[in-house]
């Protein structure tokens, strides 16, 4: 049995310890906000926070999560009011929206570690998150806007 916290709630997992966190979140906890995009940790659609750090949940085995604290897009804010979410909505970042929960989680982690990122910092931090619709310009803009709110 693996004990962990997901969005503040205690959970116990007794399935295949090799199962990636993403499928536990989606298929067992029905938290479908974290998306599947590649399954090998290179597109960022499944990004969640584990102990505050952004990780690709599609390649994090459940066996590595004992005692860890997982935050997903569903747990990022209570009222859709995390500065990154607000900036995303204000700038109308999403097109199809599928990658955006991963983008938002990645951006939230970036702003936590670097409250005032440069353009270069943003491109560095966000290049693991693919958006096939091509919303990158607005992602940059929204991160800057969120940084200003936070600062």
């Amino acid at each position, binding site marked *: 049995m693996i004990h962990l916290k997901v969005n503040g709630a205690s959970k116990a997992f007794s*399935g*295949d310890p090799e*199962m*990636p966190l993403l*499928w536990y979140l*989606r*298929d*067992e906890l*029905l*938290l*479908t*906000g*974290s*998306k*599947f*995009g*590649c*399954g*090998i940790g*290179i*597109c960022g*659609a499944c990004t969640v926070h584990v102990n505050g750090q952004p990780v690709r949940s599609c390649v994090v085995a459940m066996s590595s999560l004992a005692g860890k604290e997982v935050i*997903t*897009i*569903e747990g*990022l*804010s209570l009222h*859709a009011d995390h500065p990154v*979410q607000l900036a*995303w*909505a204000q700038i*109308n970042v*999403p*097109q*199809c*929206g*599928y*990658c*955006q*929960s991963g983008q*938002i989680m990645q951006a939230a982690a970036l702003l936590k570690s670097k409250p005032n990122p440069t*353009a270069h910092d*943003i*491109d*560095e931090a*966000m*290049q*693991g*998150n*693919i*958006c*096939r*619709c*091509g*919303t*990158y*310009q*607005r*992602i*940059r803009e929204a991160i800057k806007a969120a940084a200003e709110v936070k600062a």
Partner: protein
Amino acid sequence: MSVEVRFASRRDFLGGLFSTGALILGARNLPARNTPDLDVTKSAWNPSVFLGLNTDGSVIIVAHRSEMGTGIRTSLPMVVADELGADWSRVRVEQAIGDKRYGSQDTDGSQSIRDFYVIMRETGATARLMLERAAAAKWHVPAAECRADNHQVIHAASHRTLSFAELITAAAAQPVPQKSEIVLKDPAEFKYIGKGVPSVDLTDICTGRAIYGFDVLVPGMVYASIERPPVLGGKLKHFDDSAAKQVRGVQQTVVIDEAKPPYAFQALGGVAVIADNTWAASQGRKKLKIDWEYGPHAIFDSGAYKKSLLEAATKPQKVVRNAGDVDAALSSATKVIEASYYTPLLAHAPMEPPAAVAHYRDGKVEAWAATQDPQAVQETVAKAVGIQANDVICHVTLLGGAFGRKSKPDYVAEAAILSKKIGKPVKISWTREEDIHFDYFHSTAGMYFKAAVDSSGRPQALLARSVYPPIGSTFDDKQRYSDTGELSLGLIDIPFDIPNIRAENGPAEAHVRIGWLRSVANIYHAFGVQSFMDELAAAAGQDPVEYWLAALGSPRKIDFEAEKTKYENYGKSITDYPLDTGRLRKVVEVVAERSGWANRKPAKGQGWGFAAHRSFLTYVAAVAQVEVDTAGKLRIPRVDLAVDCGPVINPDRVKSQFEGAAVFGVSVAVLGEITAADGRVQQSNFNDYLVARINEAPSETHVHLINTEGLPTGAGEPGVPPMAPAICNAIYAATGKRIRELPIRKQRLT
């Protein structure tokens, strides 16, 4: 997180949506000829099924097109609301199931606004007139003195108002007005059209609550993962599932019969592993041991195939446009310039791979799918499981990108076939590897151009040839030549004022399923034509934009009929939507001015490139600025796009489509390539099928919308075609290196 709330299962959606006593512009008020069983696509006047008003004044507008990121689920309902005089905050948007009564729901071809803008306006205006007439009757005043606005009807002269809620019942009793009685709003009165409202899905997306095909949960569903024949047309010889069945969570395996040519939207076949969750299904599939018979397409080698396309393009082929006498002009020319171009197969790779749930029960199927075309789902699923199309209910989820892939519902057929075999709801969710191996690929093309130029360098004759496996091969496996429709995407409609012009198309056999990808054949045709024009400008020693405009000639509407050329014009009348070179000229002038083209001062290693192209009836000109460093690394600091798509309905969403098209264009130009060996696609995931990431995308994209009058045209696709040639022409300006093959990353830039 109740499943039932997400997707209520109901066939009678009108009855389910609207409470009793509501004004339903639908079944009840439908003109007699439009009984629900009739195909309303044949009927131009059928506003009814899109709109309902409840007695509490709330307005429900049906979105019948699929939302894959264009904002259409917001934009079309917004048009209805504006004409209705509704307050947008009191409008609820409901996604339609697949049903012919809506007309076409095939959300591709950049046609949602151009085909439904007027219908949506008429829908709103019809209901508005009925509300106004109901108010007029209550007040005993002429209806012409009553005006609906902000969810109420106003009689200005007497300062009286009645809310929609107060009028619904009386309005419902009004006869449905004739089309001739409807007066559409003056654009000056628009509250939402031309201004826009935030996407109805915005908050759900930002909080992870938005539901895509991948996210559908149906009680009792099982998860399937399918091992398909690795080569198109391959057959299952023998398989051993004993190890697969040992995997924890695996329930059983099921064989799906192989598809037979033509493949169309059939399930490809293979061995499915059914399991308790996605992970167990995929782990079980990896343990299958299968012997395949590969079949005739195992000979496919993309390297040899490329050579054959390019070689065929240098030889005389089937003439598809012929004006003047190209051969005579070429043979008497003082100078002849020629060049060959090549573009590879591409995969769609939407961020959400194909996904669906289907439940076969009592001879009927209920499906939930990320689909661009729920009516195609109905037909495809019906055929796959041997029932009638109207016994298939298709609920449409949000689509996590699509780009044409999700117009082809083979994955929904898979779910339905499996559900029928095992008697449970089945979820299919493809991995990225499946998505890339088993796509309906964007075609690969070999092209050849030859021009005769006069002493001033101006083209007097142009021969344009393209050879590629056509989309038609997916639906008729004997087809080798392209349809006129596909040739009308940038080859037949070369817009330059050249006295002698001939276009030709050569045959090619497809070895993979060929499909349409965002902007389709325009991708390679615009790359070839717009690169070649830049070559001619360079040979003449002239500025590319000035040369291009001179070649375009004075503003005119191209008369294909006079040339006896068959041209399809995106399914629209050439009278209503002419190929107007004046509009093309205008976008070129705007992009040149707004980008600062005339005053450009690129430093060493920097270059500006230009291209312009009309597609989906929309005129787009692009200027790309590039930097190539000493190591040959490419950067794209800025892109300018000038766009004439007629009147703009939702400007922010149109802008976002073109911003996205610039990035998609970078993927096409710089990165994307599908290759094959022994009939197998060699790429598998985003590590080897590359798409643009944030650091590879243009640093800035400036979209300049020219809001013209007349009819709205396409927005989703037309930004893509000019991108690759603009980037390649910029690389030439920066380095002197001419790119004649995509992707650029395979070329040495230093």
